[in-house]
C-alpha cells in the first residue's frame, strides 16, 4: 500500500491539472472569501448597510482572523466541492483513457491496493489544500485586521480543528464522488460533466422544487450538497437565504447529522468505487 501511495504522490504532484484545480480553489477562496467582502466594506459609508443589506461591521467581522475556520470552508459546498469533484473524476477517469490502470494493474499490486493508494494520495492532496487554504486565509485576515486596526484575535484551537476537519471531510466527500463517477464512466469527460451538472444544477433544482412540493424535502434534505452546506452552516457561516449569505450554505441539518451524512456518503462512494474497480473486467 505504501508503494502505491508513493507512486501516486509522485505522479499527482507532477500533474498540471492538479495544480490548476488547487490553484483555482485557492484564488476563488481568497477572492470570494476576502477580496469582494473587503471591497464591499471599504466602499460602504461605514454606517448604513451595504449593497447586499449587510452592515459594514458584520462584513468586517467576517474577515477577521477569528472567523478564518468558517470563511475557509464557506466556498466548499459549491465551487470548492465542484473543483474537488473534478479532481477525483479526472484522477480516476483519465486512467481509463490513458490506459494507465491497465499498466498499473499488471505491475504487481492488487487492484484494491492500487486504488487505495490513489485514494490515500488524493486524501493527502485534500489535506494539504485545506491546510494551505487555512494558512492563506489567516494571512489575508491578519493583513485586513492590521489595515483596519481591528482586533488580531486568533481562532481557538477547537475552532481551528473544526474548520480544518470540516474542510477535509467535505473535500474528501466531493473527491470521492468524483472518483466514483470516473470509475463508473471509465473516462474523464463524461464523469466531470455529470458531476458538475449534479453538484451545480440538479441539487439546486431539486431544492427549488422541494419548496413547491414539500414532500421532496425528504430527498433534498439528505443530498450531498445539503450535508456539506449544513456542516458549514453549523460552523457559523451565513446561510444562503439570509442577507449576505453564502451560496450553498444552509442550516437544514444540524452539525452532527450533517457530519454523519458526509461520512456515510464518503464511505458509500469509496466502497462502491472500490467494488466496481475490483470486480469489473478491464478491457481498454
Amino acid at each position: 500500500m505504501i508503494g502505491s501511495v508513493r507512486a501516486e504522490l509522485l505522479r499527482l504532484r507532477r500533474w498540471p491539472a492538479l495544480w490548476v484545480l488547487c490553484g483555482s480553489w485557492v484564488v476563488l477562496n481568497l477572492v470570494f472569501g476576502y477580496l469582494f467582502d473587503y471591497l464591499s466594506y471599504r466602499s460602504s459609508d461605514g454606517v448604513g448597510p451595504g449593497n447586499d443589506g449587510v452592515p459594514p461591521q458584520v462584513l468586517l467581522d467576517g474577515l477577521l482572523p477569528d472567523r478564518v475556520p468558517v470563511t475557509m470552508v464557506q466556498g466548499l459546498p459549491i465551487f470548492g466541492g465542484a473543483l474537488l469533484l473534478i479532481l477525483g473524476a479526472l484522477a480516476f477517469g483519465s486512467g481509463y483513457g490513458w490506459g494507465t490502470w491497465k499498466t498499473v494493474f499488471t505491475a504487481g499490486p492488487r487492484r484494491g491496493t492500487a486504488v487505495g493508494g490513489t485514494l490515500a494520495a488524493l486524501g493527502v492532496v485534500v489535506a494539504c489544500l485545506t491546510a494551505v487554504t487555512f494558512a492563506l486565509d489567516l494571512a489575508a485576515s491578519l493583513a485586513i485586521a492590521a489595515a483596519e486596526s481591528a482586533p488580531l484575535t486568533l481562532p481557538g484551537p477547537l475552532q481551528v480543528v473544526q474548520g480544518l476537519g470540516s474542510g477535509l471531510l467535505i473535500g474528501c466527500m466531493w473527491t470521492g464522488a468524483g472518483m466514483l463517477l470516473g470509475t463508473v464512466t471509465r473516462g474523464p469527460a463524461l464523469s466531470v460533466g455529470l458531476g458538475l451538472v449534479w453538484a451545480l444544477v440538479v441539487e439546486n433544482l431539486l431544492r427549488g422544487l422541494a419548496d413547491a412540493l414539500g414532500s421532496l424535502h425528504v430527498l433534498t434534505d439528505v443530498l450531498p450538497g445539503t450535508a456539506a452546506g449544513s456542516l458549514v452552516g453549523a460552523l457559523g457561516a451565513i446561510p444562503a437565504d439570509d442577507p449576505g449569505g453564502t451560496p450553498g450554505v444552509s442550516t437544514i441539518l444540524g452539525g452532527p447529522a450533517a457530519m454523519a451524512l458526509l461520512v456515510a456518503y464518503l464511505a458509500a462512494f469509496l466502497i462502491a468505487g472500490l467494488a466496481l474497480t475490483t470486480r469489473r473486467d478491464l478491457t481498454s
Partner: protein
Amino acid sequence: MMDDIVVSDRLTKRYGDRLAVDAVSLRVGRGEVYGFLGPNGAGKTTTLRMLLGLVRPTSGTAAVLGQPPGSPAGLYRTGALIESPGFYPYLSGRANLRVLARYGGHEEVAVAAALELVDLSGRADDRYRTYSLGMKQRLGVAAALLGRPELLILDEPTNGLDPAGMADMRELLRALAGAGQTILLSSHQLGEVEQVCDRVGVISAGRLLTEGTVAEIRGESSTLLRADPLPTAQAVAAGLVGAAAVSIVDGALRLAGGGDRTAELVRALVLAGVAVHEVRPVERTLQDAFFEMTAPTGPAERAEVPA
C-alpha cells in the same frame, strides 16, 4: 519434463452471445519463447488479459507462475505489455517508469537499466506525449522489463515500429530468450514468430487450433521437379521414395520430405531417359501453415481443441 509456468485449462470468455475465447488450453515452459499466433480478433489479447487477471474468464482455469491470474505473487514476477502501452502523458518516460517501479516494489535503479535495454535513455526525460509510436512501444517493453521478471507477456510488441525498430525489437527478444527469459509473445507477424519463437500456438475465432514447435507447425518441406515425360518421371520417383510421397501439382512432380535423395532421384530419372528441366526445394513457411489453418473454409472450422 519442462517446468510449465503458464498453464491454462479450457479458458473461455463470453461477451453476451459472442464467444471471444473458446476453451483455450495452453502451456508455456520455463525458458521458452512461445508465440501466440492468430489473425486480428482471434482472441489473443483477451486470452492474455485473462492470464494477467485483467479479464475474468467465463469458465476454465489458469495459473501463471503457479499463481491464480492477477494475484500479486504472480504479477510481481511477470512483466506485461498488453495492446497499446498506457502511460501518463504529462510525465517523462523515466518518471513513468519510476511510478511503476514504486507500484511494483522495484528498486528505482532498475529504471535506468530498463531504459538502456530498449535504447530509450537519450529521450528518457522527454514527456511521454512527445514520443513517437515506436518510442511508446519501447517504453512499454521497458516497463515490462522492470525488476527482471521471470515471465514476459508481450502483446504485439512490434506494433507501430518501423522496420529498423522491428529488427531491434526482435534482436532484443532473441537476446532475452538467449539469457533464459520466458516469453509469451502474441503476434500476427508470422516472420517475427518464426524468427524468435521456440513453440507456437495458433488461435483463430477464439479456438486454439494447434500447438507445437515452429517446425512442427510449418510441416515438411517438399521437392519440386519438372521433367518430361511426366508419367515416367512419376513412376521412377514412386519407385524410389514411395507412391504416397509423390504427387502432381500444376504439371510438376511434388515429392514430400526434404531433398536428401535428390541426387539419387535425378540420376535414376536420367538413366530412365527422362529429361529433367528443374529440381528445387520448396520450403513450407509458417505463413503457408497459418493460412491453411485459419482460412475461413480451412481446418479452422473443423479443428478440435487440443486436449
